[in-house]
Structure formats: structure tokens, C-alpha cells
């Protein structure tokens, strides 16, 4: 009864084309944003912020990146980890070369480097599709991996061969490095993720988003209405890699604190791809759901089992968690092969007509 659009008349096309045309959705979004920006930092413990919320947002951002490419444009990619790495290393090079440059600017700029690299590795997509493209992007993953290990210049010739995140401050508050509090890190990440999600949503609802989806759904017809395939595909690679790059930079600078190249391996690519598939291909909110399920659920289970007070060895807890998560993923895919965002949509539709079935 609460969730109704009855009586909300649109008087202009602009109102009808708004991203959230239903008033209740807008109220809901406002509540979520207020809770995220004010409620969570006040209420949540340091542990929850640092171990749950921060990674969750970062994974969601990477998933949005891959979703733009795979979900919206229909180009399968296994290079996500590599592109995240490019972002992280670019950010490291930037912030060590220009120590006075604002760290947020560094992070956002490092995405540009990733996006250029992504566009280059997107070139094969002009000729090949589907699984073959996945294999071609796999080569990007391995090549970039190799670069991260073999080119010491990327880590400023550190003996450890790893990125060692320096201390950077924002308005006098430490944002990166060992002194940065989880609250500050969480808020910085949340601001960046919110902003970039808004940008992505704008892009995908307009002309560019329509041409992405046109290429995904029927590339012959897309070409016929005047969409240049190569431009559109490369743009999709560039935008997607930008998001992955920023996520990679955030991951190292605001979560890990230091990172070896192994972090950006093929595992990471697969993890993000699973998030996108479970969440929903072609849905921004699905990227958040996917990240929450794949990353958040194991943590919840692990701590949930501990909280029950059962005397289970840590190794058993780990096995149980893996088994449960695996089972749940299979279950979700059986219930709704189109992902969690689809379930969410169906739920909203049901709520709209409730209590009547039609």
C-alpha cells in the first residue's frame, strides 16, 4: 500500500525520464544515503567499517565497471584484475611523483590511465565476440600481471616489489597510511563511489547508454541506425576500465595499505565477474547486491557461526562458510537466473500491486 505510483502524474518528459520517476524510490534513496553517510559511521564498529563496508563499496565499484562492459555492452572480459592493478600502480606513481597533489585527485586521475590501457586491450573486441573475446582479455590480464611483477619502475624500485602506501592527508586528516581511521576511509570511499555511481547512471540512461545496449542486443541493427561499433566498444572498454582502475586504486590505498602484484591476479577478475553475474548483468544496483553476496555473505556466516557460541575449529568454520556460500549461489541462480537485481525488481512490482495479485 505504501509503494504506489498512483496519483503521481508526470507533466513533462523530463519528469518522466528521471532516473527515479517514483516518489517512494526517491525517498528510499535519500534514506539509504543518509544512513550510509551519517548512520553507518556513527553506529558501526571499526571492525565492521574496515573489514565489511570498505571492501564492499570497493568491490561494488569494480563490479559496476565490469557491468558497464559485460552487462550493458555485452563484451565479456576477464581482464578486470589487470585493469584494477593499472589504476593502483598509476595512483602510486602519481602520488609519489607529486606528493602535494590531493589524494582524491590522484585516485580519480589514475582511472584515466586504466581507461587508456583498457581501450588498447579492447581493440580485439572489434573483431571477436563472446568467449573468444574473454580469452583475448585474459591475455591482457596475464600481460599486465607480468608487467606489475617485472617492471620495478612501477613500484619505484622498492626492494619488496610491492606498493607501499604513503601517508596522505585531506584537510589535515590522514586518509591513507597506518594512521587513517576507518571512519575517514569509509567516508572518502563512500563519497567517491556515490559520485561515480551517479555519473554511471547518468551515462547509461542517455544516448551513450542506449548505444551500449544497442550493441549488446543486436550489433547489426545498431550499426544500421548509425552507431559506430568500434567507437562504442572502445568507449565501453574505456569507461569500464576507468571504474575498475579507480576501484583498484581505492583497494590498495584505502583498504590494504600495501599490495603485492598478486592481488591483481586472475582470481580477482573472476571474483568481480561472479559478482556481476550474481548481482545482475546490466543493472547498477545489482553490482552492489552482487558484491554484498559474494564478499559480505562469507564474513557474515563466519562471524555468525562464531556468535552462536559453538566450539568449532576455525578451519571447519572456513569450510562450512565456503560450502554454504556455494550452495546459496546455486540456489539464487536457480530461483532467478537473471540475478539479485531482478529479484529486487520483482519484489518491487509485487509491492506495487499488493495486496491484490494484479
Amino acid at each position, binding site marked *: 500500500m505504501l509503494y504506489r505510483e498512483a496519483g503521481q502524474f508526470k507533466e513533462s518528459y*523530463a519528469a518522466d*525520464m528521471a532516473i527515479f520517476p517514483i516518489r517512494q524510490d526517491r525517498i528510499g534513496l535519500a534514506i539509504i544515503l543518509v544512513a550510509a553517510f551519517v548512520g553507518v559511521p556513527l553506529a558501526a564498529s571499526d571492525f565492521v567499517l574496515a573489514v565489511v563496508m570498505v571492501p564492499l563499496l570497493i568491490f561494488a565499484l569494480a563490479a559496476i565497471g565490469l557491468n558497464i562492459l559485460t552487462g550493458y555492452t555485452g563484451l565479456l572480459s576477464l581482464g578486470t584484475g589487470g585493469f584494477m592493478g593499472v589504476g593502483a600502480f598509476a595512483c602510486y606513481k602519481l602520488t609519489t611523483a607529486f606528493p602535494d597533489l590531493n589524494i582524491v585527485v590522484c585516485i580519480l586521475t589514475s582511472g584515466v590511465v586504466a581507461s587508456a590501457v583498457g581501450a588498447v586491450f579492447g581493440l580485439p573486441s572489434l573483431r571477436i565476440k563472446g568467449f573468444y573475446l574473454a580469452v583475448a582479455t585474459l591475455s591482457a590480464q596475464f600481460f599486465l600481471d607480468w608487467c606489475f611483477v617485472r617492471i620495478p619502475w612501477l613500484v619505484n624500485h622498492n626492494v619488496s616489489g610491492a606498493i607501499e602506501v604513503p601517508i596522505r592527508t585531506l584537510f589535515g586528516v590522514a586518509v591513507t597510511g597506518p594512521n587513517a581511521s576507518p571512519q575517514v576511509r569509509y567516508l572518502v570511499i563512500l563519497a567517491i563511489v556515490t559520485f561515480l555511481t551517479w555519473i554511471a547512471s547518468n551515462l547509461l540512461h542517455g544516448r551513450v547508454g542506449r*548505444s551500449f545496449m544497442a550493441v549488446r542486443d543486436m550489433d547489426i541493427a545498431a550499426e544500421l541506425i548509425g552507431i559506430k561499433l568500434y567507437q562504442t566498444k572502445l568507449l565501453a572498454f574505456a569507461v569500464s576500465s576507468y571504474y575498475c582502475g579507480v576501484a583498484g586504486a581505492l583497494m590498495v590505498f584505502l583498504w590494504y595499505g600495501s599490495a603485492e602484484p598478486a592481488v591483481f591476479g586472475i582470481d580477482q577478475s573472476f571474483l568481480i565477474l561472479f559478482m556481476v553475474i550474481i548481482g545482475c548483468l546490466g543493472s547498477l544496483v545489482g553490482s552492489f547486491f552482487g558484491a554484498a553476496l559474494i564478499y559480505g555473505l562469507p564474513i557474515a556466516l563466519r562471524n555468525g557461526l562464531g556468535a552462536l557460541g559453538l566450539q568449532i575449529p576455525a578451519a571447519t568454520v572456513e569450510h562450512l562458510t565456503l560450502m554454504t556460500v556455494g550452495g546459496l549461489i546455486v540456489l539464487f541462480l536457480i530461483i532467478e537466473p537473471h540475478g539479485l537485481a531482478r529479484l529486487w525488481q520483482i519484489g518491487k512490482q509485487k509491492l506495487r500491486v499488493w495486496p491484490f495479485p494484479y
Partner: protein
Amino acid sequence: MRAPSETAAGETLLAVEAVSLSFGGVKALTDVSFDIRRGEIRAIIGPNGAGKTSMLNVVNGFYHPNTGRITFKGTTRPKMRPHEAARGGIARTFQNVALFRGMTALDNIMAGRTLKMHRGFFWQLLRHGPAMAEEVEHRRKVEDIIDFLEIAHIRKVPVGRLPYGLQKRVELGRALAMEPELLLLDEPMAGMNLEEKEDMSRFIVDLNDQFGTSIALIEHDMGVVMDLSDRVVVLEYGHKIADGTPDEVKGDQKVIDAYLGVAH
């Protein structure tokens, strides 16, 4: 029967001259020439495998002819890509519907206006100010097309869920959104019932009258072809066997043979 439109005698919009196309040893088209005048409805008919769809594919640049020339609006381009054809004002619908299945009917038709939208990438990121103004302006045009095709009730439905007849109509809408000068319709009435065929015929005649769009039409329903078209080209095995008004073509012995068969 419909009286030939007055504009039918207009200047030549598209000229196909001695076009041949072969795939390996298979000759799809051999030495075909015909023209389409501005404002006319030109039917292309022929038995299955006669090369009708190949002809359309050559016209909008999916295939490049081995020999021969295509002149559109007075300019000849040796190798025209499909998106260049679109830019030049050629729109097309497909025999088996080629809509963007994941998108709504409205988005499909909006996508048809991609070429008319010019706000750059960075405005698109904001979706406010000029970018939004442009969206609204084009939405208004798209709503006109939606009204014209009487599909207002399904504008927010993903096209994958629409029945076949309506999908064909949305596809026509997407082509119309490009404001084409030449519209290529590949069997717009295939698989439709009588009522849907009548609706579609009405839309084709109306858009030809109202917007002056020249139309090349492939169709198997002879009743429709004879009623709608100003002139007819008949192809058989990649050769042109007849060209003229519906009445001339109907009486042509070669056409009768092609359709009814000849005693051997």
C-alpha cells in the same frame, strides 16, 4: 487500388547500375539495374532466393557489390559502411525483427535518434542542462512517432515481451526515428494476420504521404504489393526479369512463368 502518388515522377533518389554480387561460386545478384525516385513506393518481389534481401543489403552497405555502382542522392560511394548509409539517410527494417530486446519500445525508438543527438560525452555524464534538454527535445519527436504508429500503450514495455506484430511496428518506429529519406522494408508483413497487415499497409501509405519518404519494399503478399507500390522490380535467381507499374508486371509472361512455373 491506390492511385500512384503525384511525386512518383520525381527525381532519381537511388540508382542501382549493373550490380553483381557473388559469394564464392554462388551468384546472388547478376547485372541488376533499377532506380528509386524520390517519394515513390518501390516494391521488390521475386520467388524465394531471388536475391531481394541481398539487394537491400547492398543498398545499405552490408555487402559491397563485386561490380556495378550504387548512386544515392547523386553521389557514388564505392564502399559504403552501414553507419555511413544511416548518416546519408537510409533506414531499414529486417525480415526477422532485429530490435534491441533488452530495451523498452521507447528506448528502441530513442536509439533510432542517436545520429541526431550531438551533445558530447561529458554532457552525457551529467544528464542535466543541455544533455537533458536534448533528450527532452528528441523524446517529443519520438512521442510523435509513437502516436503515429499507435503504440503509446506499450512504450515502457521491454520489446522482448511484445507480440510479433507490435515488434514489427516498433522496428518501423525505430527506422522512422532516423527521419530517413529512403526506407528499406524487408517483408514488413511477414507472419501477420489480415488485420495486422491492413494496419501496417496503412502506416506505410501514410508515412509515404505525410513525410514523403521513399520506400523500397520487399513483400510476398501480391495483393499488398499491387495495392501499395508505384513501381515493381521482379527478381529471379539474381536477375531482373521485369520492371514497371504493377499492371505491367502482372501481365509480363516472364513473371507469370517465374511464379507459376513453366512446362518443361
